């Protein structure tokens, strides 16, 4: 079905590749911008090589929360096209990515430079260069003035976290601009996915962002199931959703503890560090691995649960909920914590929408978005998850939305364990249909995960696009730092807690 020029499909639906409308570059720009202005989100932009050399199809995936539809539109480009970014900041990161990977110039892009410093995926080299760019070797936005100073942090940080480089332009303690330069974690995942699926594919998905194993592997399986017309049995869907909510709960509890640590409130930090581990241990009861590895597989899940295990999980869940509640409510009732959280790193709803923030970070700025609610998939088609929002857009909101979501996850998991459907946990997947395109969205704990799979004549992946929520949200962190004290960076950073490897792929 087409509407407003877009091919419309549902989450987890596959269509013929030839059905996707291919229009002129100018029309493409106009329509995509119009669609986003009307309230859709930009979920993915990707480049698909064609049979003609140096000619590519530029695919756009927009998601329309109003109609629960996903819109697909493509245009053919050779060397350049008019950039969308000047009218639609949410496209900025995508256009930089496509330029780096495929040497396609978005004319008029205001800040065109590498985002990953990765080897080019086409023959001509990124930006037409013969050699790959050197990581970190780039011009950063700079301010001028006698009292202006620049602070450079990373790639190796002080904590046990992933690498990234941060450049602050400061006047005294005040940060006027932060530029974030990533790519240190680039492992070549999207390149390696082409030609699959093979024995490694599911393991790439499980380690795209290792703390979002269930989120990404569920999105991948959604795409595979769409491309092979596989139906997941209800019990499999239920166990997947339980795994996803356990992942959300564990990570949110860990984040709340780390936020407490960043403002020096040690009791909640200490308690939550342990409670997060207990939550991960519940996932390990399901599948043997604390991060949900080897649980989600195309067609369903690889692990079943029996009554004894359900009873054990329910009991552990009670323990975790009791401990988490006492630890986290203590933090939210402590005035010295609130004084540091409130008003720090504010992102307004208008800005959040413009730069395309998603997930709990966007919900903390009143943006009512949640894939589980808007584009329901799997078990969420049958069980409603209310969307948790908060209006203040500051570190407090980003912390509080997480706590609201943790509480919902507790009751959701409990409800599902009490009413587990009977029957099989997995159906066998057949071969993928050739020349199809599928879009699969899930709500990971950081927000919307978008996978787009396109198959070739043989039913292998011609292209596979992964968009981790961090890809949309890194610029939000940079924005949140504007006008803040540089000493608030750790707190703001943790309130976003974005993935480096999910971004770098």
């Amino acid at each position, binding site marked *: 079905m087409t509407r407003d020029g877009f091919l419309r499909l549902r989450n987890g639906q596959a269509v013929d590749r030839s059905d996707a409308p291919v229009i002129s570059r100018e029309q493409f720009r106009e329509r995509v911008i119009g669609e986003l202005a009307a309230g859709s989100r930009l979920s993915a932009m990707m480049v698909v090589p064609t049979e003609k050399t140096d000619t590519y199809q530029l695919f756009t995936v927009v998601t329309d929360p109003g109609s629960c539809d996903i819109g697909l539109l493509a245009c053919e480009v050779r060397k350049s096209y008019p950039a969308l970014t000047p009218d639609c900041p949410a496209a900025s990161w995508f256009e930089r990515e496509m330029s780096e990977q495929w040497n396609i110039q978005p004319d008029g892009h205001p800040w065109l430079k590498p985002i990953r410093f990765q080897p080019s995926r086409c023959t001509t080299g990124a930006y037409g260069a013969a050699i790959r760019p050197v990581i970190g070797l780039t011009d950063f936005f700079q301010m001028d003035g006698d009292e202006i100073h620049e602070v450079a942090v990373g790639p190796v940080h002080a904590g046990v*976290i*992933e690498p990234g480089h941060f450049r602050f332009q400061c006047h005294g303690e005040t940060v006027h601009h932060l530029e974030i330069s990533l790519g240190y974690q680039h*492992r070549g995942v999207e390149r390696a996915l082409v030609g699959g699926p093979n024995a*490694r594919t599911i393991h790439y998905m499980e380690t795209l*962002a290792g703390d979002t194993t269930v989120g990404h592997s569920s999105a991948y399986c959604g795409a595979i199931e769409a491309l092979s017309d596989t139906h997941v049995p209800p019990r499999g869907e239920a166990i997947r959703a339980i795994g996803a909510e356990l992942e959300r709960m564990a990570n949110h509890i860990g984040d709340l503890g780390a936020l407490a640590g960043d403002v020096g409130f040690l009791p909640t930090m200490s308690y939550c560090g342990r409670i997060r581990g207990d939550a991960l241990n519940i996932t390990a009861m399901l599948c043997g691995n604390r991060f949900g590895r080897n649980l989600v597989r195309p067609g369903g899940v690889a692990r079943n649960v029996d009554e004894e295990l359900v009873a054990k999980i329910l009991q552990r869940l009670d323990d975790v909920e009791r401990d988490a509640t006492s630890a986290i409510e203590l933090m939210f009732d402590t005035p010295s914590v609130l004084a540091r959280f409130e008003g720090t790193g504010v992102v307004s709803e208008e800005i959040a929408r413009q730069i395309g923030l998603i997930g709990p970070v966007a919900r903390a700025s009143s943006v009512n978005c949640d894939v589980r609610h808007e584009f329901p998939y799997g078990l969420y088609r049958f069980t409603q998850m209310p969307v948790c929002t908060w209006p203040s857009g500051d570190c407090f909101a980003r912390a509080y939305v997480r706590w609201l979501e943790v509480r919902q996850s507790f009751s959701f998991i409990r409800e599902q364990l009490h009413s587990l459907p009977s029957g099989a946990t997995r159906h066998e997947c057949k071969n993928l249909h050739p020349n199809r395109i599928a879009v699969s969205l899930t709500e990971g704990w950081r927000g919307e995960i978008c996978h787009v799979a396109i198959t070739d004549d043989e039913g292998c992946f011609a292209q596979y696009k992964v968009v981790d929520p961090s890809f949309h949200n890194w610029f939000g962190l940079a924005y949140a730092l504007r006008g803040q004290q540089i000493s608030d960076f750790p707190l703001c950073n943790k309130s976003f807690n974005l993935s480096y*490897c999910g971004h770098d792929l």
Partner: protein
Amino acid sequence: MFRQLRTRLLQKHRTMSYPNGPTPELPPRFAGRPVLSTAACQDDCSRCISTCPTGAIRRRDDGSLQLDMGLCLFCRVCEKACPHGAVCFSREYQLATAMREDLIVTGDAADAANAKNEPAARLFSRSLKLRQVSAGGCNACEADSSVLTTLAWDIGRFGIQFVASPRHADGLLITGPVTENMRLALKKTYDAVPDPKIVIAVGACAISGGTYADHPEQHNGAMAVVPVDLFIPGCPPHPLTILDGLLRFLGRV
């Protein structure tokens, strides 16, 4: 104040007594050291070899199987694929070794591999400061390393601590396959650690490249850039496996 004391009481004392007390509980479905049975293996079948996502299983010249724990993701696909029960995963969590080749499991009965490093044990057994470097890690090995600093595991009681600067460290704990984009930063961090120093590789990626082995964007693990003194396999290794590896490395268990 009263609220905080009350919460403290509710949260109880949680630090485990391991290694002096009982071993922490492992999940029932935990996949530990793989066990190969030469007697059960049929020569004409190679299902385990063909299904392994990282090529961790090979046939030796004498026809028997070997499994490289340094490449193994502990995904149990081989166990399911083998119709003869020649590959299975035990619940043995002591996996760390001091030598790369000791990570290779064969069907022959073998003693538990040695993880102890005599010079390191002499120097660092009561105080080991580590700088963690993630060089393409997915944040799972990182998370299960840093969980050791929480109050349940509390590695501080062994004098082990993660420090903020390589200048303050006795060694590096490396995760990830070492991406090309992190190679120089890792080398510089290593060079910044004062001698004598040690290096610990945690997880399949840091040992061999793991899932990303042979990608041109990475270097098949830490050994390509720095010498490694302790290998802790897994994807990711369980915190107990990491802690056990550190303690045996230092000669404390």
